[in-house]
């Protein structure tokens, strides 16, 4: 019996580069080296600073939704760095490979576009939005935590397990070359014999299960944990999009889990779900994958719409225009998202009538989305607009997202789709939706809520500089791809033969470099802000004259969020509290608060899932069985733990709340024109009071 399954020494990237020192293998070894050195540096830093204990006690075992949210964002940030670097590596290859071989092998290039897509969707966008919802939504509805705090931590651990597997694949073995969508027959064993596709399968599976559980958790939280008076139609719009996103996750993640499971059965056990022989049918995969994949698009964009709504309203100093229409538009989009999956494969053999029906359904989504754009525009009309960093992103989003939406309506026409499908036109379209739409929304949300989470603002000037790099960067990187697509450039090409592509590819390269530079400035901004945290501190907790309940307490918030459940009388609950003079008042009585104790269960399950994924990828069966048994043992053992809650005495709650109230009353309220200065300590001047 082979204890290491099918794993062999030459699967390690450094040995491969030693044996075959081509430029492609050296790049791979360099990437593997960054992973290994990065991990070592992190371990050394934690050890040198004696951070192990606080890391374990305050973070990894924490069940606090705010900390879990922050950990999701940290995970996503690491993966984002990898995704953007990969994009630059690919751009350079395409630029150099016009009538030339370039510096990457075709297989390596294919791995890069597969990991880039997989990472950006599942390990950047998903954890970013899940992290932000985790942090913000319970605060906005006046809740103490999500409904199932341990489950929340488990979801994070499962997502992290998938991400870990993706990082390991840089060092040991090769990743799938089947793209982020992993289409069979190509990903079946005869055509992709190595472990690459298995890495892809077992990275996605825990992450998609984690997302299902996250959706469940958020939906129950919104239905059951709202503060007194927080009717559904008084919720901030961000909570509405969180609810719709959660419902989409509950329904849409299962098809992905099933599709990857079936592909695994095909590959490991010789089943015939998607094979070319014995009754297998790739259309099963196409349908299952896009039954997940299309709602997934709206899982990615709806939270962004929620962030934009909060940003437009807050930085225009106005209540959100057309709140009810925005709610119904969100709901309509969520429902329609399940009716359009077939537009991802117009060219795969349906009749023209079927294509026409799905094309029309697709165009219909433009209607509620258009309603939203007008609502956001009208929110700004007659507002006192402040161009803080989130508002810059928001206005940029309006311009570019509409353009991306128009190209989407073009693609929704099956006739047009037949001529541009799988071309760079499509690549330009979905990056046009996901970068200004989703990613920039996450950046805007990051700048917006960072002071609440950490207690200090991010450096305004560097944030603006990053924006002014990212904004032209996106346009340069992707608008040339529309042209290239119409000129016949297909997606996923490692080499070109048409010299007229070169100027467009050069522009795209420049754009990708600007985006990378923007990311570096964001990193610099974080470092500078941490160093200047005293000057940028906003301890009273309301740096932007916020309107919803997450701004009601100190920054960072109490572990228990609210000393007593806030009483909600209207929409824009905190704004009204400020106007009624209720914002900084002590309750009549304080009560003991019961909170969940820390638990090692989630990190253990995450570790087990990562080991299991690695073992099954490499056919190490003893380790697969051992880790599965370990996962079960931890789960069962947890159910025998009875002491799972801790009580925070009313005195302690009162002491901390009164300390904050004293600080709030001693802090001068500032007008909005001083918002971006160090005078801003987190207390907003309320005109007319």
């Amino acid at each position, binding site marked *: 019996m082979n204890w290491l399954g099918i794993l062999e020494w030459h699967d390690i990237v450094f040995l491969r580069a030693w044996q075959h020192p081509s430029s492609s293998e050296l790049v791979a070894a360099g990437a593997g080296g960054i992973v290994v050195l990065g991990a070592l540096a992190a371990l050394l830093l934690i050890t040198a600073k004696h951070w192990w204990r606080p890391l374990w006690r305050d973070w990894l075992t924490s069940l606090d939704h705010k900390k879990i949210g922050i950990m999701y964002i940290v995970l996503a940030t690491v993966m984002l760095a990898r995704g953007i670097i990969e994009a630059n590596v690919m751009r350079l290859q395409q630029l150099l490979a016009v009538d030339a071989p370039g510096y990457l092998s075709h297989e390596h290039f294919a791995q890069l576009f597969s990991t880039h897509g997989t990472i950006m969707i599942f390990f950047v966008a998903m954890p970013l939005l899940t992290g932000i919802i985790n942090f913000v939504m319970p605060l906005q509805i006046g809740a103490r935590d999500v409904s199932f705090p341990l489950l929340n931590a488990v979801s994070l651990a499962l997502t992290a397990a998938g991400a870990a597997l993706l990082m390991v694949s840089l060092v040991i073995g090769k990743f799938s070359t089947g793209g982020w969508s992993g289409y069979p027959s190509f990903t079946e064993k005869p055509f992709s014999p190595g472990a690459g596709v298995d890495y892809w399968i077992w990275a996605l599976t825990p992450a998609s299960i984690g997302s299902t559980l996250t959706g*469940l958790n958020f939906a129950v939280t919104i239905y059951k944990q709202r503060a007194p008076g927080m009717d559904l139609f008084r919720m901030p719009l961000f909570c509405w999009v969180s609810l719709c996103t959660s419902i989409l996750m509950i329904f849409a993640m299962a098809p992905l889990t099933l599709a990857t499971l079936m592909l695994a059965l095909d590959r490991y056990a010789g089943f015939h779900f998607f*094979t070319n022989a014995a009754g297998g049918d790739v259309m099963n995969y196409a349908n299952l994958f896009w039954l997940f994949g299309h709602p997934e698009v709206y899982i990615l964009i709806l939270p962004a719409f929620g962030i934009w709504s909060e940003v437009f309203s807050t930085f225009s100093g106005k209540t959100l225009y057309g709140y009810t229409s925005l709610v119904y538009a969100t709901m309509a989009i969520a429902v329609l998202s399940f009716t359009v999956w077939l537009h991802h494969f117009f060219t795969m053999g349906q009749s023209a009538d079927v294509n026409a029906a799905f094309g029309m359904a697709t165009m219909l989504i433009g209607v509620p989305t258009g309603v939203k754009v007008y609502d956001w525009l009208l929110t700004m009309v007659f507002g006192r607009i402040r161009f803080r960093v989130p508002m810059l992103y928001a206005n940029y989003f309006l311009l570019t997202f509409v353009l991306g939406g128009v190209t989407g309506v073009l693609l929704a026409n099956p006739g047009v789709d037949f001529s541009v499908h799988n071309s760079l036109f499509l690549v330009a379209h979905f990056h046009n939706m996901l970068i200004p739409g989703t990613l920039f929304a996450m950046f805007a949300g990051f700048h917006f809520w960072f002071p609440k989470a950490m207690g200090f603002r991010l450096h305004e000037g560097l944030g603006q500089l990053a924006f002014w790099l990212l904004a032209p960067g996106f346009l340069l990187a992707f608008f040339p791809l529309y042209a290239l697509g119409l000129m016949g450039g297909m997606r996923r090409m490692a080499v070109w033969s048409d010299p007229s592509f070169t100027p467009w590819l050069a522009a795209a390269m420049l754009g990708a470099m600007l985006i990378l530079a923007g990311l570096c400035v964001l990193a610099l901004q974080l470092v500078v802000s941490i160093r200047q945290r005293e000057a940028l501190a906003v301890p009273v907790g309301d740096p932007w004259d916020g309107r919803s309940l997450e701004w009601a307490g100190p920054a960072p918030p109490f572990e228990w969020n609210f000393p007593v459940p806030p009483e909600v009388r209207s929409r824009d609950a905190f704004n009204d509290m400020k106007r009624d003079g209720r914002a900084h008042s002590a309750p009549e009585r304080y009560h003991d608060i019961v909170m969940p104790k820390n638990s090692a269960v989630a990190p253990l399950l995450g570790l087990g899932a990562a080991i299991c994924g690695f073992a099954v990828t490499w056919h190490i069966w003893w380790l697969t069985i051992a880790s599965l048994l370990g996962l079960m043992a931890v789960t069962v053992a947890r159910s025998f733990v009875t002491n799972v809650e801790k009580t925070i005495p009313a005195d302690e709650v009162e002491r901390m709340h009164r300390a904050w109230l004293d600080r709030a009353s001693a802090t001068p309220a500032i007008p909005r024109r001083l918002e971006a200065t160090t005078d801003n300590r987190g207390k907003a001047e309320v005109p007319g009071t």
Partner: protein
Amino acid sequence: MTDHHHPGLNLGHTDRSTHAAAEEMIFGFWIFLMSDMVLFALLFATYAAMSVHGVAGGPAPADLFELKSALYQTLLLLTSSFTFGMASLALKYRKDTGRLLFWMGVTFLLGAGFLVLEARDWVKMVTEHNAPPQRSGFLSIYYLLTGTHFAHVSAGMIWMAVMAVQLAVFGNDGPVKLRLMRLALFWHMLDVVWIGIFTFVILLGVAP
């Protein structure tokens, strides 16, 4: 507080505090069952396609399925849902755990009988009809659909065994009750899924 907080068995009359804690927990579990049902719905949809288009010259449903065995399996599983219902009544109305454990034991045995009969069907299909899952797309999805249900029933039985230990260790206390209420919902859902399999796979498969 209303007496009826969530679909299914409510504890309002006999245990107010657990009843109050049940609302959110049981609601969450219903949502979990819903996502599980999405999984089964997709399996059924794939079966609908592949049992027609994926036979690939191999054995078709009518050549393989035995009504008699499927009937016994159905009777065992439906009866086990009834006996779990009796266990739920004991959970609600009795402080001692004897009757509860008895009905859970009966349920466990009925579930085990179901698993044995189903496994015997599979062995027969492979040995007598040369119909393993690798033979055709139809057989692949047949084994995955029934196998997923089989795995769920097995998980339910492991859960039941753990709960028997918990009843012995903790007695019939609040958290244990909440777990048993969720197990009950899970078990009944498997019945519903089996009725789907019996109808759409077995009966439709052998229908002339």
